[in-house]
């Protein structure tokens, strides 16, 4: 396929999530002599990343950034783009609604393909033939109930503005020919007709390419497909009486035990050392509680205490999760964001005093 006679080497930009499907899609293109560069969008909800920050030092297996790993395996360049600010509108106002949880998958796909379209338009303007000719994704018809159905494929192409410059090598044979197929840049006969949730064809193709050790995210590429995470996000909006979020908010939803004893405050309590270190970094933004008379967790207070009694209640809850839970009293430090601290001694809450209904998520 890669005869020297080919006048121009066609170039594609591929949406690379770090999972197997986009990896295969790139590989199929490379087999046809297409030069591919990858783009990976950072939304803030990515499963990536957070695992780094909260991992226990030296203990956990070295975590890797899957998008970078995929790029290295495939020998492609990778552009990682921070879209977290613009992405808020996708999460808050998805035109096509949500999936099973707060995952706006269809709008998300449209948004990302649109971003890639803007990139190739800009690159063409700046670089002419060194720009990109089309966009590649690893989408497979029927793979995801909401966003990857046969009817949604043309919606993504049209609403993103990519139109027939969007090629899905893994299911292209089930869809009308796109520009790269019609122009003969790629051979449609060597593309695929995968559909449905059966992963066997992908596994077979991976084996054929000799790929292994790839990431296989269960639910989806981001935390929004996770039920517990979506519940925490919904709780945040409800507590604030407003649907909005900052990047720090959505990071904190990934970490710790979240308890809401009162509508106006929530406790975020670390469960292990890695989370402890992670939450440590937020102590200048939130009031925090730590045990001083015994080892225990770090807790952030999201909201305000209405009274000293509420502070005591919170301290008793935190003490309940400390090593001193069986002691008569536990002493904690209450520190405000400006660093001013004082100590408070309470009796740890009894197990039945921590209500299951306080659990957010």
């Amino acid at each position: 396929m890669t005869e020297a006679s080919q006048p121009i080497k066609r170039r594609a930009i591929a949406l690379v999530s770090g999972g197997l499907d986009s990896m295969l899609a790139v590989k199929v293109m490379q087999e046809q002599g297409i030069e591919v560069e990858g783009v990976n969008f950072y939304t803030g909800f990515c499963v990536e990343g957070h695992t780094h920050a909260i991992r226990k030092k030296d203990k956990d297996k070295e975590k890797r950034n899957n998008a970078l790993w995929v790029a290295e395996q495939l020998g492609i360049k990778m552009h990682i783009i921070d879209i977290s600010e613009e992405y808020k509108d996708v999460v808050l106002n998805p035109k096509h609604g949500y999936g099973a949880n707060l995952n706006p998958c269809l709008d998300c796909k449209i948004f990302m393909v649109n971003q890639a379209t803007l990139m190739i338009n800009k690159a063409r303007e700046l670089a002419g033939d060194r720009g990109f000719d089309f966009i590649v994704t690893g989408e497979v018809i029927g793979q995801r109930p909401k966003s990857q159905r046969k009817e949604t494929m043309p919606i993504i192409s049209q609403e993103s503005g990519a139109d027939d410059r969007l090629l899905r090598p893994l299911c292209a044979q089930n869809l009308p020919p796109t520009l790269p197929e019609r122009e003969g840049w790629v051979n449609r006969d060597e593309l695929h007709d995968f559909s449905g949730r059966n992963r066997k064809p992908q596994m077979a193709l991976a084996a054929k390419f000799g790929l292994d050790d790839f990431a296989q995210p269960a639910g989806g590429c981001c935390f929004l497909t996770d039920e517990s995470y979506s519940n925490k996000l919904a709780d945040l909006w409800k507590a604030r009486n407003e649907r909005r979020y900052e990047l720090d908010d959505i990071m904190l939803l990934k970490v710790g035990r979240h308890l809401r004893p009162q509508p106006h405050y929530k406790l975020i309590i670390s469960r292990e050392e890695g989370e402890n270190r992670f939450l440590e970094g937020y102590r200048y933004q939130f009031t925090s509680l730590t045990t001083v008379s015994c080892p225990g967790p770090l807790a952030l207070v999201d909201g305000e205490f209405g009274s000293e009694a509420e502070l005591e209640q919170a301290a008793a809850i935190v003490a309940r999760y400390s090593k001193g839970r069986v002691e008569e009293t536990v002493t904690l430090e209450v520190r405000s964001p400006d660093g001013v601290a004082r100590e408070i001694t309470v009796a740890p809450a009894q197990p039945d005093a921590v209500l299951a209904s306080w659990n957010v998520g």
Partner: protein
Amino acid sequence: MTSPLHELDVRRLLCPMPVIKTQNKVRTLATGDTLKVVCTDPGALSDIPAWCRINGHEVLEMGEQGNEVFVVLRVGEDNGALF
């Protein structure tokens, strides 16, 4: 080693933001320039070198200083500034 020409402070940022900021900074630099990236997320010690390997930059030095980690790199032939 002579001290790096440029320094990037990405303390407190979580992965993959240190990589993204490094990428965006390198786009403004010239081939051969050196850049020291200082971070607090230890994941950067695997991500930034991986990013460098992919994009043809050279890692000159990396390590830990207390709660911080740092990577010193030299910008390769293509700084990645296509768009």
